[in-house]
C-alpha cells in the first residue's frame, strides 16, 4: 500500500472507493474495523458474532459507497455506525428468530461474560498485576464500585470520605491504571 493512500482524508477516501479503488477500500477497513468489531462485541458479547458482523458491515458499506449512497463524506463515521447497528440488529434477529431486541431468546452461557470477551489470559494477568500496585483503599474503592456496584454515597460512607473525594479517587485510579497497563503491555 502506498504511504499517501494511508493518509487520505474521508473526502478522498469516499471519492476513490466510488471508483472501486481496492487500496482505498483497504484503508477504510484499516481505519474502522476495530471500531465496528468493538461495537459488535459490546452488543453481542460473542467474538464469533462480532467477526461476522464486522465482515457483513464492510461488505455493505463498501457496496453503498461504490453506489454513491453517501451524500457528504463528512458523515462517513455516522454512515458506518448506522450500518454497524443495523447489521447487529439483523444478526441478532436472524440468529434468535425473535421479533424485537427486547424480547429475543438469547442463550448466553457463563463462558460469554464481559470479562471473557474483553480480556485474554495475558491481558488479564497484566491487569491483575497493575491492580496489585494500587493502594488498599484504591483497591477497595474499585471493588465496591465496579464489582459490588455500590452507589457512590455508600462507598463514601464506608471509606469515610465525601462523595466529591470518591469521584476524584475514581478518575485518579482509572488514569493510574491506564498508565500502569500501558507500561506493562508496551512491546
Amino acid at each position: 500500500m502506498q504511504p499517501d493512500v494511508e493518509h487520505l482524508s474521508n473526502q478522498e477516501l469516499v471519492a476513490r472507493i466510488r471508483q472501486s479503488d481496492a487500496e482505498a477500500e483497504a484503508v477504510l477497513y484499516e481505519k474502522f474495523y476495530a471500531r465496528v468489531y468493538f461495537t459488535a462485541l459490546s452488543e453481542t458479547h460473542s467474538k464469533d458474532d462480532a467477526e461476522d458482523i464486522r465482515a457483513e458491515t464492510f461488505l455493505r458499506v463498501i457496496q453503498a459507497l461504490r453506489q454513491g449512497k453517501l451524500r457528504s463524506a463528512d458523515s462517513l463515521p455516522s454512515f458506518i455506525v448506522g450500518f454497524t447497528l443495523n447489521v447487529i440488529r439483523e444478526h441478532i434477529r436472524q440468529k434468535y428468530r425473535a421479533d424485537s431486541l427486547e424480547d429475543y431468546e438469547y442463550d448466553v452461557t457463563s463462558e460469554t461474560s464481559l470479562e471473557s470477551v474483553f480480556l485474554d489470559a495475558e491481558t488479564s494477568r497484566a491487569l491483575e498485576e497493575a491492580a496489585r500496585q494500587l493502594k488498599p483503599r484504591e483497591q477497595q474503592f474499585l471493588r465496591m464500585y465496579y464489582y459490588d456496584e455500590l452507589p457512590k454515597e455508600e462507598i463514601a460512607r464506608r471509606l469515610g470520605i465525601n462523595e466529591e473525594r470518591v469521584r476524584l479517587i475514581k478518575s485518579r485510579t482509572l488514569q493510574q491504571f491506564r498508565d500502569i497497563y500501558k507500561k506493562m503491555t508496551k512491546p
Partner: protein
Amino acid sequence: MNHQEIQNQEIIERYVRHTLPPAERRAFEEHYFACDECFEQVRTTAQFIAAVRHSAKRGVLAESETAAAESWWKAWLKPSLIFATAAAAVLAIALGYLFFRQSPSPREETAQEKEQKPKQNDIGKATPTPEDVAINHPSRTPEPINPAQAKLPIVLPTVLLDSVRDARSGGNQLTLPANAASAKLVIEVEPGTGFDSFQLQLFDVGKRPVTSFSGIKANAQGVVAVNVSAALLPNGKFLVKLYGAKGGERELVGEYDLTVRRQ
C-alpha cells in the same frame, strides 16, 4: 457531543456499563467512530472494568471487611428490616420444607427426565439437543470438581420472586454466599392455569439476556423453580420474565425484578 461533555457526564464509563439512554449511546458511538482518542479510552475502560471484576472475583482486590461487617450490623438493627427478614426467613423455611418433601431422589429425577424429554421443548423446538439440556439445566451439566471446593458445604440460596407490580419496597433480594454454586429462583403461579409448561428468561440491567429455561413444570402447589448457576449472577440488578406455554404458544405470566448481592 464534545470532550468536555464526555468527561463531565462520565459518558465513556456509562457507555461501557450500558447505562446511557439509547439516543446518547448512539451519539457517543458516532463520536468515537470519528475520534481516535475516545475510541482508545472506551476500549481501555471496557478492559479496565472487565479486569476489575475479574480481579475482584479472584480475590486480588482488597476488601473492606470492617466496613462490610459494620454495615451488616447496622442494617440488622433497623426495625423495619428485622420484620422483613423474619418474614423472609419463615417463608424460606416453609418453601424449603415444601421442596425437600416433594423433591424426588436423583434416581427418580433421572427416570422422570427420561420420560419427559420428548415433551420438554414445546416452545418452538421439535426435539431437545444436548445443548438444550446444558442450557436449560446448567446445574446438571457435569463439571470438573476442584478438590479444594469439594470439601466446602453445598449452599443453595433461594429467593421467592414477587412480581414487579406486587413487589414490596426494596424488591426481590438474593444474597449469594461465596461458596454457592447456584441459586434457586422460585415463583408462585396460580394452580390450574392450564399451561403445559413454563419458560423463564433472565435479563441483566441492560435488558441483555443472561440465560433461559424452557419446559419447566409447576408442582402441585403451583410453584415453579429453576436453579441458576452462580457464575451467571454477578452483583447487580436483573429482570426475570416468566411465560406460560400451551399448544406451541406462550403468554407472559409475570415480570420480577431481582437484586443479587454476592458475599
